[in-house]
């Protein structure tokens, strides 16, 4: 059976990709062109979590870049407006167009955050992040929980001692308003 690609985590110098195989989740950790493969068997999963985070390093690094770009663009624009007949306004427009993807990336991270799914197993953990596709993140989360649940001979899930808090309390956005997933409950 071919593996199913679920998601990845991009890091400096490499990436970690998560796949779903027949009996386990396989984590391929790439460093350059070679990689190391780890496995977390479905029955070894003890905890699966879903949360949203901004990422301090990303915000600081990309935010600084955005600030510098904005300063350069604005100063070019102001200079162009003060000296009519020069190409400065056009230069500012070209610079703004060229740096627009960085601004979009920064704003998307700050406003929408990235969705992170973490799998904790008996001998290790795996993590997958989703920057843009929130619905895909929720679908992968449910798929992981289902695989872990189906691997148990008897379906048992620890019941909370207090009434389960609604997802809306997590402030996870629109998905929370749909209520808890009945297939998990």
């Amino acid at each position, binding site marked *: 059976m071919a593996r199913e690609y679920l998601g990845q985590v991009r890091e400096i110098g490499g990436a970690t990709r998560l796949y779903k195989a027949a009996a386990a989740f396989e984590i391929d950790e790439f460093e350059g*062109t*070679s990689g190391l493969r780890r496995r977390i068997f479905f*029955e070894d999963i003890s*905890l699966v979590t879903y*949360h949203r985070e901004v990422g301090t390093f990303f915000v600081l690094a990309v935010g600084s870049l955005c600030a510098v770009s904005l300063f350069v663009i604005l100063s070019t624009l102001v200079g162009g407006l003060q000296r009519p007949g020069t190409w400065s306004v056009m230069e500012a427009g070209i610079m703004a167009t060229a740096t627009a993807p960085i601004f979009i990336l920064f704003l998307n991270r700050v406003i929408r955050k990235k969705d992170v799914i973490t799998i904790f197993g008996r001998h290790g953990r795996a993590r997958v992040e989703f920057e843009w596709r929130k619905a895909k993140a929720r679908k992968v989360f449910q798929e992981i929980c289902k695989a*872990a*649940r189906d691997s*148990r001979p008897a379906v048992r*899930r620890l019941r909370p001692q*207090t009434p389960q808090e609604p997802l809306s309390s997590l402030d996870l956005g629109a998905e929370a308003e749909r209520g808890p997933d009945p297939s998990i409950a």
Partner: protein
Amino acid sequence: MNAAVATDAICPACLKPVPTTFAPSGARTCPGCRTAYEAVVFQLPALPALRAAAFTGEGSSPCAAHPGNGAEVACDRCGRLMCGLCRVNSDGKTLCTKCFERLAAEGALPSTVRHFTSHLARARMVTLVSWLLYPFAMLLGPYAFYLSIRAWMDRRRTGENEGKVAIPVLTLLSLLSSAMGFFLVWMILL
């Protein structure tokens, strides 16, 4: 020590234990980093104990490695009789420990493969370098083409979707790079 700290209650953001008197699934907030997250807890099944039936001498054969245990099955590779302690089920085969170690060392068991080379990643890198260092394109272009073919063979073998678009693009670019390299050499020789 707080005996109520659950070992399966870990904050996914700061990776520190979240103290709970029980381990409910649902919404949680880490008291350390204040990250709100949703948790689904699964009880870990007990690891199965290895069992082996004693060899009674009536209608059964003894295990080749443990004469006191009755054999349950024969190894798919060497045919050696094995008891419940010796058998290893891996990749749809029932193997004895020696055959399992031998096949794992040879890389013949996909589930035991840990280190691997991504020919697709190498093809990407070499193709990019062949275009950047175009004087060496005559050497790097064919190598990039070879790597893209290997990546295609890997994809065919595993059946994965990765590289569906990238491999044909890299193959084309490597061929163009090779052509460019040969053209440059031809121009120099002229």
